[in-house]
């Protein structure tokens, strides 16, 4: 019996060492640069109703181009013609109004942007190619949790990024009244022109306060993301690509 265990240990040791030695020497990957978008306004409070003190805002989206890291149309722009012109093309990829996030596709725009939420830390998106399926356009998402009520379920939103606390990208803390991005959620998306990328939200408050601070103005998005311009689902380049 003793002998058996001895053999077993040796076997294990061999397998273990063998595993160590067998790491292949792959060419080193070069990560894509992570882009940072800071304080993208998403229809912030503009004024207060003088009689009730109620917060007022423009009730408009900000539209953002992920390829160039540029704000295409701010929610502060109210001119209808300009808004129509700027929102009609595929130059923008993602839009924000309050906690609602839209992608330029489906019911939200003329592009072919799609998205899905992965339960993965953002850091791990380099490890493997992004998923090939599961992406939906705004208006065609059937997975958003319905609101369970005693009168029966009420269907959830149909946007690619579900609305509501705990359903999409954020949690609302009713004690501190803070909106915080849910940790361990990464949005995999395709841009309006079909390039793959990944994104995570960092803050909903102006100046990306750490820890989050509800005294700072809300509806200011800070997020990090990357886009693979070559159309593949890998978020890295091989050295030969240079």
């Amino acid at each position, binding site marked *: 019996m003793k002998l058996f265990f001895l053999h077993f240990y040796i076997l294990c040791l061999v397998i273990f060492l063998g595993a160590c030695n067998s790491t292949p020497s792959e060419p080193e990957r070069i990560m894509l640069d992570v882009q940072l978008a800071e304080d993208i306004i998403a229809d912030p409070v503009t004024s207060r109703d003088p009689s009730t003190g109620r917060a007022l805002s423009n009730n408009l989206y900000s539209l953002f181009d992920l390829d160039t890291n540029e704000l295409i149309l701010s929610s502060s722009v109210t001119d209808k013609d300009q808004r129509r012109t700027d929102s009609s093309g595929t130059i923008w990829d993602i839009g924000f109004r309050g906690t609602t996030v839209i992608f330029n596709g489906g019911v939200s725009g003329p592009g072919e942007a799609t998205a899905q939420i992965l339960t993965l830390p953002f850091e791990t998106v380099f490890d493997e190619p992004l998923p090939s399926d599961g992406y939906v356009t705004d208006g065609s998402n059937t997975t958003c949790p319905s609101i369970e009520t005693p009168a029966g379920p009420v269907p959830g939103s149909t946007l690619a990024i579900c609305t509501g606390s705990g359903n999409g990208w954020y949690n609302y803390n009713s004690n501190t009244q803070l909106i915080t*991005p849910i940790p*361990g959620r990464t949005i995999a998306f395709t841009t309006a022109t079909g390039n793959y990328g990944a994104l995570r939200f960092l803050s909903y408050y102006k100046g990306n306060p750490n820890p989050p601070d509800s005294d700072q*103005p809300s509806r200011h998005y800070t997020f990090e993301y990357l886009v693979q311009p070559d159309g593949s689902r890998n978020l890295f380049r091989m050295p030969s690509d240079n």
Partner: protein
Amino acid sequence: MAKLPTYCYSGLIWVFCILCLLGTLTVSAQTVIPDYSPKDSIRTIEMTPLVITATRSQKMLEDVAVPTTIITSNIIQREGALRLGDVLANQMGIALFDDHGTGIQIQGFASDYTLILLDGEPVIGRTAGTLDIDRITLKGLSHLEIVRGPSSSLYGSEALAGVINLIPSPPKEKMEGAASFRIGSYATSDMTLQMEGGRDWGGMRVFVNRYASRGYDLSPNIYGPTTPSFSDWTGDLRAHIKLSERIKVKLGARGTFENQESVFASQQLGQTEERYNEEGARREWSIHPEIDVQLSKKTRLNTTLYRTSYRTETHHLRQEDEFINYEDNFDQTYSKAEIKLDMLWNTKHLSNIGGGVIGEQLGGTRYPSTSEPESSHRYFFIQHEWLASDLIHFNTSARYDDHSDYAARFTPKLSVIVRPSDQIRLRASIGSGFKAPAFRQLYLAFTNSSGGYSVFGSIPMSDGINQLEANGLIQQRLLDVRELDPLRAENSVAYNVGGSITLRTWLTAQLNLFHNNVTDLIETQPVAQKTNGAFVYGYFNLAKIYTRGIESELRMTPQLNSQSSLDISLGYQYLQARDREIVDAINEGTVYGRSPSGRDYRLGIGDYTGLFGRSPHSASLRAAYINSKIGLTASAHGRWRSRYGYRDLDGNLFANRPDEFVPHYAVLGATISKKFTFVPSIEFIAQVGLDNVFNHTYPTLVPSLPGRRGYTSLQFNF
């Protein structure tokens, strides 16, 4: 009082009976509570106390089938405790938690799940669910009884986590007076004057207590104190009279008045700081007549009337122009009439049946004066005790509550006690508990001016949404509120299993395992979306939690020699209080944390410490040295609690990062008391004490914990 054989199910013998004379209800009946309030401290510890809370009839503490603890007036006295929180803080199984006042947690439940009774009748007045236990003076009490686990089958709503019953001492049969005065740090003072007297046919006791403090400031760089200055007066009357051998009438009345003053500063973004005076007042009173009629040798009828009122007022005055910036009034009245029949069938069977009506009224700033909420409530309860043999006793009880504003409910409980020997008691119970929806969950109609959202309680919800819709403010309804079932009470099923063992005459160990399964916890959910994008919220029975753990206590009362003894209690509690939804999500592997540097990492079940404000481990200590010869008592008492979560920063809605916790801490107090007798019949007790010896403070996190405080007190008994 009759002397009973020890195993003779003492409670039963006291089953009196009655003829109910409604006309005489302005006075009230003598309770059956015997006076075991102590003349001699050593003797008291030895005596087997009688308790009433667990079964609503008298029973020896050790024969009660549910986890029950008593805290005697001796302990209150020697620990220098003034307010209810002072003495509960050092009690095994009870944790204090600050949230709009000092609340208590029992078995991991927040303050709104514990019922607090004064002589068997509920104390009302909660802010955000918390009943501030520092409102209640400990003067005039014989003892406190603490029942852990649900007792809703006897007491109804709120008795879900436990019941704390403050038992006044009955008046003595001779004239006596007592005066005490205490002064301590932060100009905290307490004065009491008490007179009592009686004969065998009746008695009366009156006391007046004033408790005041200048308040303290733990954050001197912030304008305004941590706690306000206040003065609090309590007047209390307890009287009883025996109208005949069979009819006893009892009356209790109490009034409390508190005024407090404070200052604070508030600063809107981008504006200059504005300073305010804050003034608050609280007025409470209660009246409690009771009549006890012995109908026959084996039946007794008890009729109780109770009315209590709780009223607060708060003003914020801007200092520069005395403009009243904020005003809030709250007014609650609670009236109850109850009738209870105790029946002793034979030596093995005892029943209690009863029923009552409760009316409640609410008024104040938050409720429109045109439609002040009013509710009515009927209930019936029944309890049967079956003393099957010396070895085993059963107790079953059930209660039906029919309330005008939430769904009716039925609450049963079964408990059993097994006594394999005189030294061992094994207890098990399974019972249901419930908590009625809070006032806001029923009656609130509120629109947040800055956020633009609205919240409706279940009663005004339908009308409120119709009104918003008529004003063109509703974009879409998410559900048809007319089809909603009425809001249900929050509901628990609890299991308690444990026992006690007397290892030596001076050494007893107790253990209790508890598991509370709570469903139908009330949370908000959107019911409609407004045109401004904000939601209209309603209250629904949604969440599920469970709390489970171990309560254990070791009590040592060794006699050192003929004059001196020790009395030491060591308590330890292990607790898990968890949200089922979070537990399920963690088990699915979808829950992550985010480090301050932004790295996301998956959390396991070990990273989940449970609901906010709950320490997984807590310990308590009560140690006293008592020398009856020289009248000296020394006490060291305190508690320790492990860290507990208080906020979420990384977006997963529970505490997992170190900066989301209040660190563990210990609070220890010590006193020395000496009794002098100058002339016979005049007794004089001097005490010095120190609270929070280690001077632990967390100014923002635990504002109710002041630094080290000293005090000295004198008491005359004449």
